[in-house]
């Protein structure tokens, strides 16, 4: 199956938030009244119930010029996904045939390892359900040949969905056009440290991705690689040990009761 991807051309993004609204609607997410943090951003960061956030960054340049970057932020669906590597619960985080990184929430144990392992700081724990949530690239839509909801909603066509190889080419061409048009540091953001991403950006200033709220050189933390590589048996043993310990504790002492706790 063809690997799919999302292209975000930040040079034509106007921060209209149609993608945010579409995401909330399609994913049946709530519509809380937000708190004010002194910016145009809807929330300071992505949340377990808000997966698609446009980040607004005011950047003052050395020559006195000003940029106001608007960049849509969500799960990057990394080719080398730290969350999958880190996840101890078999099948809870998995890669679909089309390259999408998705969650099976029935299998998620809420350990939060994926949150630590994500170089983009995307997954979020829902404290009530104790499960972790993030963008799934509208897997229910892509499964039937539709584009993700955010793409459908974008009014300026700064968002494109399609085969990853095609989009890399489109992004490369667009960046070249921008450079020819005097935007010398225009480029593509598709960081090699995570094997590339299935969400690709065109940035007017690719030398400074942090100005767009993107990490400069994201990599999967070495601790995750070691932990889930050579030392995976140890972690699994600890996990199994923990579960066994809980089991024997229950057999030995029985369930805890709320009234015991308060007395």
């Amino acid at each position, binding site marked *: 199956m063809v690997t799919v991807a999302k292209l975000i051309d930040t040079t034509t993004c106007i921060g*209209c938030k149609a993608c945010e609204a579409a995401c909330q609607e399609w994913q049946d997410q709530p519509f809380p009244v937000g708190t004010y943090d002194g910016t145009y951003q809807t929330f300071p960061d992505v949340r377990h119930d808000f997966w698609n956030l446009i980040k607004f960054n005011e950047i*003052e340049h050395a020559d006195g010029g*000003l940029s106001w970057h608007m960049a849509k932020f969500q799960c990057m669906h990394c080719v080398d996904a730290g969350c999958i590597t880190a996840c101890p619960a078999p099948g809870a985080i998995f890669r679909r045939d089309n390259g999408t990184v998705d969650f099976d929430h029935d299998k998620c144990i809420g350990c939060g390892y994926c949150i630590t392992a994500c170089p983009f700081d995307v997954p979020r724990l829902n404290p009530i359900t104790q499960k972790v949530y993030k963008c799934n690239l509208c897997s229910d839509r892509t499964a039937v040949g539709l584009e993700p909801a955010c793409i459908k909603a974008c009014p300026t066509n700064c968002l494109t969905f399609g085969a990853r190889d095609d989009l890399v080419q489109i992004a490369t061409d667009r960046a070249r056009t921008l450079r020819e048009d005097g935007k010398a540091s225009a480029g593509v953001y598709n960081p090699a440290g995570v094997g590339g991403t299935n969400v690709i950006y065109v940035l007017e200033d690719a030398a400074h991705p942090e100005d767009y709220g993107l990490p400069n050189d994201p990599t999967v933390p070495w601790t995750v690689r070691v932990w889930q590589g050579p030392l995976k048996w140890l972690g699994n043993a600890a996990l199994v040990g923990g579960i066994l310990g809980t089991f024997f504790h229950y057999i030995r002492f029985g369930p805890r009761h709320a009234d015991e706790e308060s007395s």
Partner: protein
Amino acid sequence: MTNGWTDVANADVVLVMGGNPAENHPVGFRFAMEAKRTRKAKLVCIDPRFNRTAAVADHYVPIRSGSDIAFLGGLIHYALEGELYHADYVKQHTNAAFLIEDGFGFDEGYFSGWDAESKTYDKASWQYQKDSSGFARVDETLQNPRSVFQLLKTHYARYTPERVAEICGCSAEEFNRAAETICSTGRAGRSGTILYALGWTQHSHSVQLIHAAAMLQLLLGNIGMPGGGVNAQRGHSNIQGATDMGAWNMLPGYMKVPRAPWRSLDEYVHTNSPAPLRPDALNYWSNTSKFFVSLLKAYYGDNATRDNDYGYDFLPKIGEKDNYSWGFFFDRMNRGGLEGLISFGMNPVANGPNTVKMLSALAKLKWMIVVENFETETAAFWKASELAGEYYPGAPDAADIDTEVFLLPAACFAEKDGTFVNSSRWLQWKNQALPPPGDSKPDQEIIARLFLKLRELYEDEGGTSPEPLTSIAWDYGNAISPDLQEVAREINGQEVATGRQVPGFGALKDDGSTRCGNWLYSGSYTADGNQMARRGQEDPTGLGLYANWSWSWPANRRVLYNRASADADGKPWDESRAPIRWQGGRYTGDVPDFKADAAPDSLGSFIMLPEGVAKLFAPDFVEGPFPEHYEPAESPVDNAMHPAVGVNPSATIFTGELDTLGTRQDYPYVALTYRLTEHFHYWTKHVKTSSLLQSNFFVELPEALAAEKGIQNGDRVRVSSARGTAEGPAMVTKRIRPLQVAGRTIYQVGLPIHWGFLGRTKGPLVNNLTPSVLDPNSGTPEYKGFLVNMEKL
């Protein structure tokens, strides 16, 4: 729009000024992005704030709110001085060669003919020199000192880059960089468009501002060209339709509402049918009688006969000098001069200037009917004291208000069929998505039930003058709730005898044999069916005209004034962007803005105007034939052009007890109101999606001002004007740059409008702060560029 949204993709330069389409017209703005992507078009954004449009612009220049005419005057000067204007176009398609009376002049802020007592102009000297046949005299060389072209050069010689910088607060270099890009379109083979919105219309000199934009585009040869034009981005989905269908002073199709001195149909027709000013002018308004009589036939049916002037006497007449526009009738209401108000799809407490005055005025009514989707601030005005007392300490308690308020629930746009007329002048038919909830009714049913009841009362009880009501033709199949397809057919027009749909306004007659609800819309619903429901996506010219998508007024023409896209012989200025071509005795491409079978050189290119050409010099407006820079009614500085005449001498400035203006000493900061992309007016604070995406009112202010006042991002601040206050959290930003104006630092403060005392999210009404000042031509309030003070709470 002279052109249309899809046409913006044809531009080489997109000038956005007095608007913020990335914020307020994101869907249409895709075509500006397309121009950037596919043509490497340059986007120039000129605005007091570095806004969402500026974020994707190639050039951004900050200016002081209210200084736009100075900037545009500077561009006109830049084009003339550097000979960057399109000389052949200017000669061929404008009145540059026309000679003006010797008495015309401009001196220290006033044009000739100013009468200080009446505060009006006598326009006698603003006229063309005429020959013995009554035609305007011209000098094709443009060298005559009385030619429009020479007068124009003289008038704008004062608008140097340095003077622009001094008034607007940008630097001369910034101005020059933008001017170089904008004026690069002043030659064949380059097209530049202008997109504007309420940032231009909401000043005490707004009509002149848009006139200046039209003059610039004429000088650059951008009117009638694909990728050109002067393009108003309308603020509501159907405000273009509302405008086309009339206002207090306009009947449908921009025909004037009769004034008292026009006592008969003949006098009306005579007054409103101009004589041609050049021998080759088609002068299309000479057809006024056909449109007007057909309208009367639509209104009064069989009761409109030749003997009774087709019911001309049934039409209400406005007194010769009367003005019933918004600011005037609220002022009259506040003085106790009105008994009742029907507020239909309108929320004047929220969107009128000087909210305190709005509240005071409504409290003097006996009754008010509000027709709306929600309980609005207007419907609940009597609770203002209870719900937002901190802002309205003087507002009366509910117990002391005698106004009886009826709130009629109306269907919202998705709950009824009908049309939207968008900014592109496209009439797009829409279907009902779901039935209206509860007791809410579609608009036409509410109007019909009111009308039928009133007519019944007049028929039963008589009255002073019942005929205007009892003579109205109301032959709809369903009298209580007319089918909108039926209404649309009536608007298109029909032959009276046969009931057949007319094919277009060319078929309308002034002998009572045709009826037509709006001549401009004639052709929208023909014998071939509802043209507005068409969704064809064919684009044979490749210019994005989409002739088979919906229907565009007039005559399904997509680019207005498209005859000007070619030279005298009809050769296109730009072969790759020719909307029409003269081939084999007819025009191909767009519907020509010209006589369809007339050779290109047979007539003047602007067929609606008695001049036959476009007007650089336009005596139509009240404050002068050339736009001049005037300061807002409240300004932090003197007018650098003529200190003795600061404000537009013709501006409408109310002077009642509640109409106070502040001084620059008490209120040192320039404020402007604006909209945010997440919201639509005062509606969407009731909607879950919008109130999530932008939950809070805020006050945008420059970092330097915040530092001076010790204000941190998020601190609560109070903004006050001479009228009232608004409180909210501060948004401290680099995006509003302090400006150097007349040697001083001027700070500007930004206030988004969308909140009020009702809704899912609440906030202050920013119109608490705005002044009772109007543009004298349009009656639009000055919501941009008034003075405020600010304190940290």
